[in-house]
């Protein structure tokens, strides 16, 4: 019998797995960019805030779509649930302290996620896609009809949002507080999601995505896992929506619209789903492109974006990050001695 020369856990691939969650050298880069943006573009902080909210929203979508493989077109349901929670509580003078409002937004969105998930996640594929869409449409219609509470089609404007921690004023013209506030919340949410995806739970989500039937055969309570993941994702989307409402001091039907759900999906696919940073890259690329194209072709800019998406879908399934990874692999292969 051959005695193994090294312990099994010291196998290179085992070591790589054991350390895969460690931060890579480039990982501070996006955060440094985000802080640099604050100082470099004080006049664009409104745009920057919107961008950060979109990144957070995309991050929540990535958890269900990229990691658990749940196909959804209705993720704005949770964004809107969070936004309306913050908006309605503040507008009707019930509660408006920013941080606790945000937690309430998360809880309400999570409950919507749990409730709909219990029903939806029995289905798969196209049925699931349609049902997510229906859930969102139902909420949108409810918000439209309940104008006494929701402001209906006009939404609720001039929300009275008090200063953050009683110190930092939310100024709609110079949204410095908004920008830093959203950045900090994004960072916390990101740390949470990053921890989750490298955890045994995250590994089991990947298992469900890769082969649901096999997960049953290893004894995994698949539906409960999916519902848990969906609920967590909904809570994060709700936080994104709540931040959006606080930053803009208004809430309206666009928070629950298919436009918003489709936009975040496009951004995530553009960046590359299932890669945590896909939302970052995708949201930046999407917003920058939309900004740029809208200036060039004020009427037909969405056509350009649509074309780009077709190109991505045909030639770069894994988005911008996927292209980057493929290039890196090629460079490494060239420099490796055969």
């Amino acid at each position, binding site marked *: 019998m051959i005695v193994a020369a090294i312990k*099994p*856990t010291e196998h290179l691939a*085992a070591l790589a*797995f054991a350390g895969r969650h460690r931060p890579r050298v480039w990982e501070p880069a996006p955060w440094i960019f985000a802080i640099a943006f604050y100082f470099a573009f004080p006049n664009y902080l409104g745009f920057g805030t919107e961008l950060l909210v979109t990144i957070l929203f995309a991050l929540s979508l990535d958890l269900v779509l990229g990691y658990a493989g749940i196909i959804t077109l209705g993720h704005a349901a949770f964004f809107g649930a969070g936004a309306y929670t913050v908006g309605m509580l503040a507008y009707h003078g019930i509660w408006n302290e920013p941080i606790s409002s945000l937690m309430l937004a998360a809880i309400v969105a999570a409950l919507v996620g749990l409730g709909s998930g219990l029903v939806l996640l029995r289905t798969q594929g196209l049925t699931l896609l349609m049902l997510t869409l229906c859930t969102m449409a139902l909420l949108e219609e409810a918000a439209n009809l309940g104008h006494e509470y929701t402001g209906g089609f006009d939404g609720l404007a001039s929300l009275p949002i008090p200063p953050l921690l009683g110190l930092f004023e939310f100024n709609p013209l110079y949204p410095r507080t908004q920008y830093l506030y959203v950045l900090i919340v994004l960072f916390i949410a990101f740390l949470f999601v990053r921890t989750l995806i*490298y*955890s*045994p739970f995250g590994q089991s989500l*990947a298992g469900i995505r890769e082969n649901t039937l096999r997960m049953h055969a*290893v*004894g995994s309570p698949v539906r409960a896992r999916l519902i848990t993941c969906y609920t967590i994702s909904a809570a994060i989307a709700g936080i994104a929506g709540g931040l959006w409402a606080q930053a803009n001091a208004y809430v309206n039907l666009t928070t629950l619209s298919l436009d918003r759900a489709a936009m975040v999906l496009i951004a995530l696919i553009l960046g590359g789903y299932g890669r945590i940073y896909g939302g970052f890259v995708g949201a930046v690329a999407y917003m920058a492109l939309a900004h740029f194209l809208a200036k060039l072709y004020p009427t037909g800019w969405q056509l350009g974006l649509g074309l780009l998406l077709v190109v991505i879908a045909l030639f770069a399934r894994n988005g911008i990050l996927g292209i980057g990874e493929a290039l890196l692999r090629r460079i490494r292969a060239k420099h490796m001695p055969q």
Partner: protein
Amino acid sequence: MTACLLETRTVSRNFGALAAVSDVEFRLEVGARHALIGPNGAGKTTFINLLTGVLRPTQGRVMLKGRDVTDIPEAQRVKLGIARTFQINRLFRGLTVLENVYIAVSERLGIALDMFRPAGARRDVIEEAMHLIAALKLEDDTGRRVSELPYGRQRLVEIAIALGLKPEVLLLDEPAAGVPSAESHIILDAIGSLSEQIGVLIIEHDMDVVFRFAERITVMVGGRIFAEGTPKEIAADPEIRAVYLGQAYHG
């Protein structure tokens, strides 16, 4: 009476008008080395699906360790100690070999709900997975994605996953099908070194393997149990030779 691990009582399963499994009375004892043979389409895989809960029987009961598990879903039966491999690979194709086995071990240990610690911090799980990977001679492929492996090596991952569940009942559906003959001994060695306490049921077409491994053989034909006995009895039965053994080698 020896202790019975798994038992069926007049189990049947129809697909429309087709009776894929009919009135099967079957017992798997503790420590059994049992083979299930029969021509293609005999209903062997369907029978395994009934035992594991992938399919519900049209009629009859399935008992696991004396407990009626007929209405218990597949995932919960795994927790009760039953594991299987699939005739056609069902793997986490986009994940590495280590991740595939890690998932099985972590589900068994019940740590898969842990969201706040890195999977890599569970050295015990990695170590156990690596032992299984080593037992199936997959060390060199540990970090490779399953989809990049040749089919025969993927078959070994199937078995590593099932063993990661530390079952009391192990059901192997043609584990060596598609494995190059130079590597099929890896599978036999792995199965051979299983604990005496585990009951193993193997579906296999290679009669050399069956007669070497099995202490008991059940022959299934047309969804029914055609014969059951020791390898000697089965080999000596002229009727079985006629219906099955004679044509087994092109199965």
